[in-house]
């Protein structure tokens, strides 16, 4: 493309948006760096779309500020913002051909006709739809429409591309393929991508960083690995990956922090928590099922318990084992061979995990 756009950073500063009594977005702040691929991830209704629409300019924040490249854009109407959006329903103009859809943004920018034609060709290549310029949107498959929507947003060289669950309507196979393709396109053109999804796997696969949203707030933002290893809230722990979230009470802080759980009948050593707790604080102790060892090996870990097996579920490449320790439910995953060695329903087995594999977060019921 002729004049490559510099990617731009996006910042939200204490942004709040209400609809009547509903606080769709609550006091959200984050900084997205130029060229980054960031996903807004969270369950339906948590405010992802509203956040994205405020960046695009279709909604305004009731409070707070949004900046693009350091400059506030809240007073800029959407048609003058340097952002482009891929809509959830694609929003292709049904009365226009693919080429005309692609040309739309360029015409608004008064680009000369022959230049538009050249750009359309390049874009059709980039989104892998060569030769389909004359089709009408309703003559295309869902996946092809998705590509047109992407091309139409990209062709105007935006500084930031906003995508609202763009793959939501596609079947699993196509979705996986498009995820990789979006990654490729992001790498090739290098602009900032802000990607809304409720699919944790999608967010993990694609993003440099993930902002996990819940009930209008961003609970944590960071690379997937970090969010997975160090969730900051019980919600994040359960939303990204699988987790046992145990109600626990802090009984010792300092060198060897310790909590009790299972109605204070069991104690567990934990690594120094990321944030500080005091004695007698009620917390959630997060233990990932794949970090729990089962069988004789379990005895070598910091925290070792007897578990009564209540269910063994074969799940393809691994086995899920549910049980009770001190009356408190716990589940873990293990390999098929390990599982077959031990555990019949009703039997008692040893389970264990390291202090370093426990994350303490504030209790949330």
């Amino acid at each position, binding site marked *: 493309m002729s004049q490559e756009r510099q990617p731009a950073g996006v910042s939200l500063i204490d942004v709040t948006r209400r609809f009547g009594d509903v606080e769709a977005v609550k006091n959200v702040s984050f900084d997205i760096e130029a060229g980054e691929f960031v996903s807004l991830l969270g369950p339906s209704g948590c405010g992802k779309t509203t956040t994205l629409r405020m960046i695009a300019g279709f909604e305004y924040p009731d409070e707070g500020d949004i900046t693009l490249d350091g400059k506030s854009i809240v007073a800029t109407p959407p*048609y003058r913002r340097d952002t482009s959006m891929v*809509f959830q329903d694609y929003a292709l103009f049904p009365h226009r051909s693919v080429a005309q859809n692609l040309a739309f943004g360029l015409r608004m920018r008064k680009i000369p006709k022959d230049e538009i034609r050249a750009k359309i060709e390049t874009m059709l290549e980039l989104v892998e739809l060569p030769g389909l310029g004359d089709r009408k949107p309703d003559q295309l498959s869902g996946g092809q429409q998705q590509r047109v929507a992407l091309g139409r947003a990209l062709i105007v060289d935006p500084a930031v591309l906003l995508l609202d669950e763009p793959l939501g309507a596609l079947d699993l196979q196509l979705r996986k393929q498009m995820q990789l393709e979006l990654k490729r396109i992001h790498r090739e053109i290098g602009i900032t991508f802000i990607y809304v999804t409720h699919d944790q796997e999608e967010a993990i696969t694609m993003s440099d960083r993930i902002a996990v949203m819940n009930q209008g707030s961003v609970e944590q933002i960071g690379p997937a690995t970090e969010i997975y290893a160090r969730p900051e809230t019980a919600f994040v722990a359960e939303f990204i990956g699988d987790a046992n979230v145990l109600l626990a009470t802090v009984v010792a802080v300092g060198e060897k922090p310790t909590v009790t759980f299972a109605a204070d009948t069991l104690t567990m050593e934990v690594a120094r928590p990321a944030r500080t707790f005091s004695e007698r604080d009620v917390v959630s102790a997060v233990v990932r099922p794949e970090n729990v060892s089962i069988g004789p090996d379990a005895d070598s870990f910091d925290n070792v318990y007897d578990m009564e097996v209540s269910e063994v579920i074969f799940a393809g490449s691994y086995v899920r084992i549910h049980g009770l320790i001190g009356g408190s439910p716990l589940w873990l995953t293990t390999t098929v061979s390990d599982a077959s060695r031990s555990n019949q329903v009703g039997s008692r087995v040893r389970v264990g995990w390291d202090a370093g594999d426990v994350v303490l977060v504030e209790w949330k019921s």
Partner: protein
Amino acid sequence: MLRVYAVLIFAFLYVPILTIIVFSFGESVYPTLPITDWTLEWYRTALTDSQLLEALTKSLIIAPLVGFISATVGLLAARELARREFRGKGLVLLVLLGPLLVPLIVFGLGLLLLFSSLDVPSSIWGAVIAHSVFGISLSTLILYSRLISFRESLMESAADLGAAPARAFFEVMLPLVFPAFAAAFLLSFTLSFDEFIVAWFVIGFDTTLPVEIWGRLRYGITPEINAIATVVLLVSLTLGVLGQKLASQRKDES
């Protein structure tokens, strides 16, 4: 049996209209059956009658104005109604139906009183305004039923791609709702073109075609009037049918 009913119903609906058409081609000055000699003479007379032509011209000025005003205002109103949810929306839609339900004579009288108390001089504008009240009602309802299935994201993506609101309207919304817009125009046009009672109340010395026809009827039916009535009928019927067709066109294209 059903067939007999159908024939009777159609006869009931169309025999009066057919009568006018048939007599407009009859040689005789008085409406008598059977018609022995056929002629186009009355059409020639009607179309060279300067008074009738003047009335026709007035109608042809008023009707498109009414059509355009109604369809445009109707589109803007329908868009706001369709994209907003608010309490009492049902009531607003019901109130919109009002002018279409109020007896014309009452409405005409009311408008006459209003205009004279405001010292609005009687002119074709009186008729334009009066007819537009009905036209806007009708147009808003037609366009509303189209716009509730219009995807707002289309306008948003136009804006997102750099189109200011007016540009987005002409590039995206208007082409997509054009059939409904045209229907609203045509039906409002027809409504105005045919309408007599209200026009009679507000128009003063200017006369629209229906008012002129009515004025002449007091001196007896002439074949000339049958001829002009047939012309009016054909115009109205054509536009009306076209409008209906457009209004009921597939709505799923956006």
